[in-house]
């Protein structure tokens, strides 16, 4: 580090430290935005190709096995599927810029309306998972890091490993049985939009997500905390006699949180994939279930639309995660 930073006192370079930082931040912001868009584009291309290359014909699925060749051809023409794949892509691509993601082949809904009605449910589950995950992981990691007892650390490692090894759908089924059927704390199925009424339907899926989220987050945070505890500056905090809250936040947590935050932002991508299963098990009207239905019936526009949105969300949150990491701890470098 020392080599990069000017050591001489008289050099004017430190003067614009703040300005330079702001400029760097702006550069990073534009760079990331551009990157998000290009990732979104490639995700869209891949989704477009994959769904078309996989076996299964939406038209035959829609019309059933009894359909005549004539009606098949007619519908194919109507949907534009008789055109070359390049032309289809071109049209799809152009329409995106007009804000038109196309229409479902089967219902008359626009893809945009599918996304806007079902995505909030999924995002709610993920938001609640993150909230619960952080709420549980931070105290656990802090407690284990500060406990001088080796047994605590050992138990922590064991439990987190076990929890991680259990598949999410297994936890979901067990949770549903236990909380939904036995204790009747959670409705076994159904959904009702609107906060906070929807919480009673999504708390259990969010808790199941925590089954993998909390072990991952608390492990990473625990190891960062152990590193921080060895740092010289913690000693300074003790000597200065700062208040307890300030000590925990500014001397322990904040200098340790960046890797966890960055990881959490990547975990959002993993969780989006996971909600597909969760929504099916808990019969929640989220976007994951729509995706499964659409893939089943080869509903090209819906599949493409949802996959592209997933891609954008993942890229967006990884950017937010990096940024938040930097704001928490200036040692983090943004690239």
């Amino acid at each position: 580090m020392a080599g990069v930073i000017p050591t001489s006192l008289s050099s004017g370079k430190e003067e614009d430290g703040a300005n330079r930082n702001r400029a760097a931040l702006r550069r990073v912001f534009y760079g990331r935005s551009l990157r998000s868009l290009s990732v979104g584009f490639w995700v869209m291309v891949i989704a477009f190709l994959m769904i078309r290359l996989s076996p299964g014909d939406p038209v035959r699925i829609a019309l059933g096995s009894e359909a005549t060749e004539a009606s098949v051809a007619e519908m194919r023409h109507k949907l534009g599927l008789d055109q070359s794949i390049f032309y289809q892509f071109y049209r799809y691509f152009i329409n995106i810029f007009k804000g038109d993601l196309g229409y479902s082949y089967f219902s008359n809904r626009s893809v945009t309306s599918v996304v806007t009605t079902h995505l909030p449910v999924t995002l709610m589950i993920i938001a609640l998972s993150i909230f619960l995950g952080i709420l549980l992981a931070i105290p656990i990691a802090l407690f284990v890091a500060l406990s001088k007892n080796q047994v605590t650390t050992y138990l922590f490692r064991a439990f987190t490993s076990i929890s991680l090894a259990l598949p999410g759908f297994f936890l979901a089924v067990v949770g549903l049985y236990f909380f939904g059927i036995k204790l009747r704390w959670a409705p076994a199925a159904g959904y009702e939009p609107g906060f906070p009424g929807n919480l009673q339907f999504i708390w259990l899926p969010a808790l199941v997500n925590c089954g993998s989220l909390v072990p991952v987050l608390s492990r990473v945070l625990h190891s960062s905390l152990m590193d921080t505890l060895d740092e010289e500056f913690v000693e300074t905090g003790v000597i200065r006699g700062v208040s307890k809250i300030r000590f925990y936040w500014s001397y322990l947590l904040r200098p340790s949180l960046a890797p966890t935050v960055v990881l959490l932002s990547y975990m959002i991508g993993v969780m989006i994939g996971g909600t597909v299963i969760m929504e099916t098990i808990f019969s929640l009207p989220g976007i994951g279930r729509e995706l499964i239905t659409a893939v089943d019936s080869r509903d090209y526009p819906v599949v493409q639309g949802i996959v592209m949105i997933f891609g954008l969300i993942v890229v967006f949150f990884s950017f937010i995660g990096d940024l938040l990491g930097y704001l928490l701890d200036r040692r983090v470098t943004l690239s």
Partner: protein
Amino acid sequence: MTSSSHKLLHVVDLKIGIPHPRRETLIMVDNANFDIGYGEMLGMVGESGSGKTMVCRSMIGTLERRGATVLEGQVLFEDQDLAHASESHWKKLRGKAIGYVPQSALAGPNPVLTIQAQLAEALQKSEAKGSIAEQSKRLLDLVKIRRVDTVLKQYPNQLSGGMRQRVMIACALASEPKLLIADEPTTGLDVTVQSQIMELLKDIRREFGTAIILISHDLALIDDVCDRVVVMHAGATVEVGSVAQLAVPRHPYTIALNQSRIDIAEPGSELVTILGSAPSVGEWPLGCRFAARCIFRQNDCSLGANHPPLFGERGSHQSACLHTELLKGAK
């Protein structure tokens, strides 16, 4: 040691270790003995792992958080025994009369707080007049930082190593301490910055009469700025005396340290390195812990159960060698 003494700090037969519920206590410091007078500059030398930092931690109350504790002996600071102070007592003591500049300059300041915020913390207990902002500026002026307003708003990673060290010194001086402990304040800094920091420490001492403990591996540096020197080896004080007295060493370890000095080696001659390495914590031999590396070793050196005590009158030139008579003429 009683209140009749007029020294600022006495470290008497200090023994520090980490107790373990099942295994034996791990001893890291045993037989540390030295004093420091008001306004005195004391150098502390010794290889890595010889317990220099541990001894200092006993003066600032941060042993506990490392699981270590004072097992025997005293640390008397103006007649208060710091060695056995309770945590609630430490809450009042810490960050007041003893300032501490931690070992690594680069990692010293808190990376997530601005310089301003850190100075404000350090100034919490200050009784000096003026607002926190005024006092912060004064402190940064004192350690010769320019463009104070910019620096106050910056984070440590925006500052060079030398600047960070100045900030750490400023924080340590915030409570106008009578004793400043600087733990290897110049390691990791380039040579010009090193000498600037040393000048700064000298200025501080001259201006405020602050006593300073300067820990360093660099004997030349210590010769230059200190009044007295304490030499540590494997957790024990093996020699203590004034800089002039240590020019004629009375302990083979000091002789070895002197011979491995680069600055006074004759051009063309080979540098002498010290034989072997210091015994690790937990593997100390009986008797003198330097015996295995000593070229003057005698049969009785490893006989006693304990490390030899410091011979000679406290405050004079003392050495823990059983056979100082063999060392005459050696440098």
